[in-house]
């Protein structure tokens, strides 16, 4: 087993590294000063790639690894993997669904509360001694507000369930209407945005959903509306979002992801109706361990010729 080369494309989790070290010959791509030469040198032994939300396996990488059999992603999103190329080459692909659904949904609600109730701004107010001068201003109630969800998959449904605990009416946009829900379906994202108070992006990133939240959607959401993005940065036209927030055309935003991570638009730093997080949707001790176990489990299954645990391709 330890002759099998597994290429990890970027640092993601030390526990995962340890577990892969025990079972395979783990090659840490990011530590190599001359990556092209490194790949050429190890091309014959690399049979697996481990990626995540930041970096995966594009066509170029896949083409330089002739012995590649499986790409195992430490994420549920597949947008950094050239799935068509993998299908073409017969390369298996796995991700980490379900184990992170709760954490991402929890964070979406946490961001909604942080923005509407100005929790981060309040914390700053107390820490800076502002409370001695007077009370913080009135904030906006969260309970009972209409939550509009783009994408009613696992994460979207988990967000809906939590928001219902706050008596929030739920509406959604999806490629097709889902049977068996009481939630209100809207045929377009603009229609959804016009009819909700809080819009949350919870769909997969594909060429079709890139910039699904554009100027028109942002305007429809309006000066009292709040946008929450726990999907991928490119879901939102970031330049439009920034200008809408700076000009007050959008009421607020809670963002865990950005178009060009780790860059974050600095024009947002002074706005107290905006909360910015360093891509931590699944970043809990418990969930990252479960995700790591799933990555390792999928690789072990593949190399033992057993059924994959969570295959995508």
């Amino acid at each position, binding site marked *: 087993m330890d002759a099998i080369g597994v290429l990890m494309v970027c640092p993601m989790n030390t526990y995962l590294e340890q577990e892969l070290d025990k079972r395979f010959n783990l090659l840490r791509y990011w530590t190599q000063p001359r990556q092209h030469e490194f790949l050429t040198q190890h091309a014959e032994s690399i049979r697996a790639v481990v990626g995540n939300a930041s970096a995966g396996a594009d066509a170029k990488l896949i083409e330089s690894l002739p012995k590649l059999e499986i790409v195992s992603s430490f994420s549920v999103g597949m947008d950094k993997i050239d799935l068509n190329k993998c299908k073409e080459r017969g390369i298996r692909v796995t991700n980490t669904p379900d184990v992170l659904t709760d954490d991402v949904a929890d964070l979406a609600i946490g961001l909604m509360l942080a923005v509407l109730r100005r*929790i981060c701004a309040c914390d700053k107010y107390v820490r800076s001694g502002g409370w001695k001068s007077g*009370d913080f201003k009135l904030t906006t*109630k969260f309970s009972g507000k209409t939550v509009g969800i783009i994408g009613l998959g696992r994460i979207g449904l988990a967000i809906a369930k939590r928001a219902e605990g706050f008596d929030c009416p739920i509406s959604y946009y999806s490629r097709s209407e889902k049977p068996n829900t009481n939630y209100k379906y809207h045929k377009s994202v603009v229609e959804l945005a016009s009819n909700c108070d809080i819009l949350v992006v919870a769909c997969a990133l594909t060429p079709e959903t890139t910039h699904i939240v554009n100027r028109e959607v942002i305007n429809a959401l309006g000066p009292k509306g709040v946008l929450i993005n726990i999907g991928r940065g490119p879901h939102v036209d970031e330049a439009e979002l920034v200008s809408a927030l700076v000009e007050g055309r959008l009421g607020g935003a809670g963002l865990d992801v950005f178009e060009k991570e*780790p*860059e974050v638009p600095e024009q947002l730093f002074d706005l107290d109706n905006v909360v910015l997080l360093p891509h931590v949707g699944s970043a809990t001790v418990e969930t990252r361990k479960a995700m790591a176990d799933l990555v390792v489990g999928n690789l072990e299954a593949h190399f033992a010729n057993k059924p994959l645990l969570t295959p995508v391709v």
Partner: protein
Amino acid sequence: MESTAAEQLPEIIVLGPPAIFRSYDKKFSSRFRVLRPWESPLPLAQFLAAEAHNTQAALCSGESVPADLLRQLPALWLVVTPSAGVNHIDLLECRRRGIAVANAATTFSADVADLAVGLLLDVLRKISAGNRFVRNGLLSKKGTYPLGFKLGGKKVGIVGLGSIGLEVAKRLEAFGCTISYHSRNKKPSLTYVYHPDICKLALESDILILCCALTDQTHHMINREVLLALGKEGVIVNIARGPVIDEKALVYCLQQGEIAGAGLDVFEDEPRVPNELFELNNVVLTPHCAFFTEESLRDLYELICGNLEAFFSNKHLLSLVSEE
């Protein structure tokens, strides 16, 4: 003509004034004739003697309404407080005089419960700390950020299962938490596990959320012993009253890592907050604003007017505080 109309409005005295009055002053004044002691150069006692000897109803703030203040309002039959809590009012004196007390009832319960959940998520998932990290430009420089802790599946212990406690329970159940509680009495109609002993609740819980009234029994109820029982991975959220927690013990436990974090909306000596907390990244601090939303204030205004108008029409009060 205008002053005659104003004179015919029922008279109330406003003490404080509370924030709700400051936001809704004009509206109150269109429905009541309002005595405003803070606008007078006279000290309060003289103002009351001069102006309020016939006043039957008072709207107070969160400040103390002790027996000797009540005695300076000899015609008083009603005190309306804009809070859910009534511990700042001398209830014994009110009972003795037959003065009714009306509070904010469940007006804020949803908002307060929302903030409790918001504080909890912030502490566990490092939302305020993460927001600071990004705004300090550290995402580009340092990249990684320490992991937070999962909320789902955690055992939540609610202290005080009144209207607010129940709203907190309902919300956290939707996140997959299991709920237990400590209260003066067990609530037989509920399936949540009851703990008559606060220490046992803390021992069995990952998270404690304080939703109880401040009374002699609950004063410093959360002390070092309870915090140690909660443990090194435990988180405490306080949206009740500061003095329910022994604040010195809490600060010490946080500094020593005896508990994992705290979300606090209330403090023993507001607006003073222990400076030691400012150095900690695992605490989230808000300035007693759990109830302070536009919507709640609007609802509160309607409730206060509803109570006052019911009183002046000899009807049942909307939110009479009954003796317990």
